[in-house]
């Protein structure tokens, strides 16, 4: 029971958050389930939400597979580490900035159309509509999927490669017999997360979708909460979203259970399928294509920032106080998220490895995502309604923002830490038990050396995400609590596009610096 206690604690916090938040909204008025069920508009919205989220997941994760494989096969090439860090950037770019970056490359007047014009081709209008949604979602999620898949690929034990080499396996056989059984779990996990992120997408879908035919449930929730001030309806729709998302994610993730790997000596052995000019060219082409497609919009954001009034913005003390606040929130939220993920995973791997309760383990890990699919506006409003009896709810703003950001980061941390933690248990559980290795000694001798790198990645990812997240701060913000993304949105809302572009540049630099620093400080020099 000892190992399940922290897990149950985290689950209890999550459960209370979800039930209390949604409950607080639902209890404001008699809930109208039948209104929601019979609403034709809403039915179309739900159908479209499913459709675009499924396609986006297919595109993002489908493309991530060959690229992650290529990156795993090519372990050494100049700039590889930085490429991986830069691939973390799309995750932290605030949506609106990402939209501007994407439009600068793929838009009507974007780079591609201007290049096409230069060689005599007319401008193509392809962005606004389903292609725009898919491009934007791939921009955000393809790099995420690559980052989640890559470490799993790298965990293939040297013994397997040696065996594959001795048996003379072809590339196809290596994929089918060695790689796929191992990465399947991570692919399913990544697909579940990407599906939820795309399902709850809002500004991207509306802005690049070309019109109200592209409306997600998230838009309907926002509309109910803001313009209609119908709290109960917003609560119902949020509940609908949670149920749909977790249901689909559970189904997707059930397709890939982790594969047990026998403990090996951990000796390195080169993959047998690296030779051949053709595979080499193919691998580097994959990597280059994704690097260019993702980094071009980022490049557009950077160049817009450098073209803006850099010194005026950098000289503004508000910028630095916002940056400091964002940094504080990011570090606190990231610490909380990683601790919660570890607590939850200690329980879930106990269920999985020691007690053979796979279903329960899956459910525990998936519950970690529940808060991710509740819109920040709903979370904020619910928190407000709950705290109101305690006096000035807005005095709690910093704590709420940190808590919500931590819960939003939790699903990412779970997906980064889950596979290695489960692997450690499956490989070393019996050894630890027979040696009587427990508590701190086990932590120091077994877990820490093997988990450093993923812990670093998880902390870095959560901190970077939190830095770029507008989250609930918009609802709770006052003069004193302006985060960097909020400052950015405020500038955009006041014609200050140039200043906003510079602010975005600072935000990106801060996220990247934080990412690299945490990854190095916690993860050590080992590759994640």
């Amino acid at each position, binding site marked *: 029971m000892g190992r399940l206690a922290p897990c149950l604690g985290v689950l209890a916090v999550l459960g209370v958050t979800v039930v209390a938040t949604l409950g607080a909204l639902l209890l404001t008025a008699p809930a109208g389930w039948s209104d929601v069920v019979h609403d034709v508009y809403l039915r179309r919205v739900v159908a479209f939400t499913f459709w675009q989220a499924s396609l986006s997941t297919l595109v993002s994760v489908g493309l991530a597979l060959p690229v992650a494989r290529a990156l795993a096969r090519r372990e050494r090439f100049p700039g590889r580490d930085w490429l991986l860090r830069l691939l973390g950037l799309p995750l932290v770019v605030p949506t609106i900035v990402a939209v501007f970056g994407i439009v600068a490359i793929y838009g009507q007047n974007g780079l591609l159309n201007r290049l096409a014009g230069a060689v005599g081709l007319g401008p193509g209008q392809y962005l606004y509509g389903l292609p725009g949604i898919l491009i934007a979602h791939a921009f955000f999620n393809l790099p995420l999927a690559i980052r989640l898949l890559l470490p799993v690929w790298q965990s293939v034990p040297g013994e397997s490669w040696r065996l594959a080499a001795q048996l003379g396996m072809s590339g196809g056989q290596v994929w089918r017999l060695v790689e796929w059984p191992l990465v399947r779990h991570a692919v399913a996990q990544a697909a579940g997360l990407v599906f939820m992120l795309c399902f709850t997408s809002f500004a991207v879908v509306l802005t690049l979708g*070309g019109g109200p035919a592209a409306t997600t449930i998230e838009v309907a929730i926002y509309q109910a909460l*803001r*313009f209609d001030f119908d709290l109960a309806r917003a609560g119902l729709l949020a509940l609908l979203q949670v149920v749909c998302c977790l249901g689909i994610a559970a189904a997707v993730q059930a397709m890939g259970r982790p594969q047990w790997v026998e403990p090996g000596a951990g000796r390195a052995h080169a993959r047998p399928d690296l030779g051949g000019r053709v595979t080499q060219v193919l691998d580097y082409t994959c990597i280059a294509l994704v690097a260019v497609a993702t980094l071009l919009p980022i490049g557009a954001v950077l160049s817009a920032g450098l073209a803006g009034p850099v010194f005026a913005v950098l000289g503004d003390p508000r910028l630095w106080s916002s940056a400091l606040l964002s940094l504080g*929130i990011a570090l606190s939220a990231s610490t909380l998220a990683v601790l919660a993920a570890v607590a939850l995973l200690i329980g879930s791997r106990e269920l999985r490895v020691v007690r053979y309760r796979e279903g329960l383990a899956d459910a525990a890990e998936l519950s970690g995502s529940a808060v991710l699919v509740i819109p920040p506006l709903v979370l904020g409003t619910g928190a407000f309604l709950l705290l109101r009896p305690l006096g000035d709810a807005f*005095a709690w703003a*910093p704590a709420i923002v940190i808590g919500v950001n931590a819960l939003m980061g939790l699903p990412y941390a779970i997906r980064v830490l889950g596979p290695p933690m489960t692997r450690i248990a499956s490989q070393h559980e019996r050894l630890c038990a027979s040696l009587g290795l427990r508590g701190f000694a086990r932590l120091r001798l077994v877990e820490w050396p093997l988990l450093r790198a993923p812990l670093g990645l998880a902390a870095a990812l959560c901190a970077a995400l939190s830095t770029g997240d507008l989250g609930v701060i918009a609802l709770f913000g006052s*003069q*004193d609590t302006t985060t960097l993304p909020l400052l950015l*949105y405020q500038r955009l809302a006041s014609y200050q596009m140039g200043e906003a572009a510079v602010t975005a540049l600072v935000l990106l630099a801060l996220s990247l610096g934080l990412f690299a620093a945490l990854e190095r400080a916690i993860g050590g020099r080992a590759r994640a």
Partner: protein
Amino acid sequence: MRYLSTLMLALCTASAGAAPPTLTVYTYSSFTADWGPGPAIAEAFEAECGCALDFVAVDDGVALLGRIRLEGPSSKADVVLGLDTNLVAEARASGLFAPHGRRVGQLAVPGGWRDDVFLPYDYGYFAFVYNTEVLADPPRSLRELVTGPAEQKILIQDPRTSTPGLGLLLWVRQVYGERAGAAWKQLRPRILTVSKGWSEAYGLFLEGEAPLVLSYTTSPAYHLIAEGDKRFAAAAFSEGHYLQVEVAARLKGAREPELAERFLDFMLSERFQRHIPTGNWMYPAVALPEGLPEGYETLITPARALSFPPEEVARHRKAWIDEWLAALSS
């Protein structure tokens, strides 16, 4: 690092308890931003009231009303500043606001002002803004916009999520009446995209994605005065332009009712109003003795100010949005 962040957050929250008396004004964030009118206005008012003025800022007018309704009678706010006319009916229905009891004949708001609870502090008109170097021949009426060439794209905002988006919906309704749905269907091929808020659409416009964007008649003034950029203009439509009036009111439960009343008086004085044209980029609600700043004379003056009474907007908003959805989805 963790200690540092905790300490920092503690410092941030500690600044809440200032010396009395403090007037608390809820408003939207672009008003209180360093570049907005808020800081100068706070300084001017504090100098004459011997009090502290504390702004609490949220996203925009819609969020402002939402927050007041959430807080209810226990709100800390003395004054709410930043609702617009389309929110007034719902705000009044909340019963949280006190009548202002003033004579409002001297106000410069087009069409006069009759509301007994809300006082206007500025106004503007929605308009389609274009770049004169890109578009030589902009549409001269809403009808020309609707029937114009499909390849000349426009960027608009969503009435479900954005104030200008709702403004355009009402504008089309004013001009086309019951045939608004058909007009939207006709306009549909011209719409490049419908964005969540003003910032997205205007940002895309500045990137050159479409030659026309839904914004305000005063937008070109920003580019001219703040950036020295003369390229932008608003297209004058012969049917007139839809009016947006921004208002403020005192809360019934205000803790500093006298200071609140004093602030409302101050709001209608020249000391507040002169910060509006180049701070909020709107027209002041009271004629300024020194007139409007240089550059404002280049702006178009709408032939007519179009508007619906707030109650009518509140009554029909849902049906009109459904009509819009039907015309643009399917």
